[in-house]
């Protein structure tokens, strides 16, 4: 029996056919394709979850500075704010966002992270999943299931479009990460397979067209803050899906649209550091300073 699928519709069919949730389909698929037993695969994914958790703790506790010095310490500032003050967007939201930023700051300082789906977008999934997990008292095994659900969403995007900023802009990278995170949360909180895909579709729709324009070509600025907005986007979309709101455009078509948008972005806005924020007076000045100092 094959558990392979190419698109969202096929995933929905598989879930209904076997009366399984998305995470279970992914687990069966992984076991079937790799020949490993399911316990071992769950254990491997748990290792990823541990690295994600450690990165959040590290980013919120330690004084982080990136290799170039452009980023570091912002997650701590936000963490401080939501713990001590009434925040504009609420402490649950800020907790997730601070966690996500912490992970990307650890990434930029050459600390240990899990690419999810990429290193540049590595904050969103742990930020969303782990903070929602704490709020809803979800145990580690539940969060591991969430990672499998997230991987199914990412797999469809990688297969039919791209998760690379160089190919599709930041919409592909942080967009995919946010869609994965939203999908995982929807399933963990009891959403149906269809609701998971609506959540992922709405997330992707919200960020369509976002360019990839890193200052000096480094995974630092604006990457850390774009993980913040990706986190907020995932949480909002998950709530919309769980409220029963449907994406007017189905997930598979949103993915296709994202790919088309990505391809029509000029190359200057696809991780080349030749356009957007990288090509502002400050962006150019910083690039010059970083490379003159470092060589």
């Amino acid at each position, binding site marked *: 029996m094959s558990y392979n699928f*190419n698109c969202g519709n096929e995933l929905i069919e598989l879930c209904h056919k076997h009366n399984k949730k998305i995470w279970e389909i992914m687990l069966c698929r992984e076991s079937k394709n790799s020949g490993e037993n399911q316990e071992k695969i769950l254990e491997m994914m748990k290792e990823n979850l541990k690295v994600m958790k450690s990165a959040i703790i590290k980013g919120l506790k330690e004084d982080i500075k990136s290799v170039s010095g452009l980023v570091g310490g912002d997650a701590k500032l936000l963490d401080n704010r939501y713990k001590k003050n009434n925040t504009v967007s609420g402490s649950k939201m800020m907790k997730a966002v601070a966690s996500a930023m912490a992970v990307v700051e650890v990434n930029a300082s050459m*600390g240990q992270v899990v690419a999810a789906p990429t290193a540049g977008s*590595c904050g969103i999934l742990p930020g969303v999943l782990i903070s929602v997990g704490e709020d809803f008292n979800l145990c580690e095994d539940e969060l591991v299931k969430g990672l499998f659900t997230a991987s199914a969403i*990412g797999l469809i995007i*990688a*297969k039919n479009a791209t998760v690379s900023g160089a190919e599709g802009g930041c919409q592909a990278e942080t967009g995919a990460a946010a869609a994965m995170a939203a999908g995982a949360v929807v399933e963990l909180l009891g959403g149906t397979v269809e609701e998971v895909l609506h959540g992922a579709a709405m997330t992707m729709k919200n960020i369509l067209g976002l360019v990839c324009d890193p200052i000096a070509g*480094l995974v630092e600025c604006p990457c850390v803050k774009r993980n913040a907005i990706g986190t907020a986007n995932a949480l909002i979309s998950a709530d919309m899906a769980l409220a029963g709101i449907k994406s007017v455009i189905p997930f598979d078509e949103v993915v296709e649209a994202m790919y088309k948008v990505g391809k029509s972005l000029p190359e200057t806005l696809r991780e080349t550091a030749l356009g957007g924020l990288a090509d502002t007076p400050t962006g150019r000045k910083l690039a010059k300073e970083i490379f003159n100092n470092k060589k």
Partner: protein
Amino acid sequence: MKNYSAFDIIGPKMVGPSSSHTAGANRLGRVARKIANDDIKSVKFLLHGSFAKTYKGHGTDRALVAGIMGMMENDEELKNSLEIANKQRIKYEFVETNLGEVHPNTVKFIIEKSNGEQVEIMGASIGGGNIKITEISGLRLEFTGQYPTVITRHKDYPGVIAKVTKMLADYDINIAFMSVYRQDKGQDAFMVIESDHEFKDDLGIDIKREVDDVKDVYIIESM
């Protein structure tokens, strides 16, 4: 369309900041180390394209040196690899260059072994930590390190391939993919064999002993 695993999407575990510039670079270094038979006195890294432009900020230099020393892409010590190499008296040098019409994240390793022998390896980091090796000692070939791989450098002569594949069959090793490369008839050739199962360490010694025309065997674990 690639048949992605859940761990291709959620993974790899790595030190940042970039799967292509850091994790991929580290993996290229690890393969280069294997091809130099774990024996490296000095390395000159020729960096091309995006590798040349952003290697300092992405820690590509540290990742490459870590790989050359056999450190993994998720080793937190990776960021101190230059200092570790200095202590181990491994010499390294980074040269920004243009390697021609190749992938933007390409590096050429010029490695000197302890006996003075030189090995050259070229490879590219092609995204998400995935790599491909494109050249060994001036001879073009291609493999990704996704599968356990055995490479032989042998004389382009009838029967060499049959003898090696027969040996693998005797070891009960299934060949998943295989390619053969050569520059000129009767000269040096490479055979790249990828399998689903890790090869035993002594396989290389066995092949060299049993098959006269095989000069070198490299065994590379899957990434």
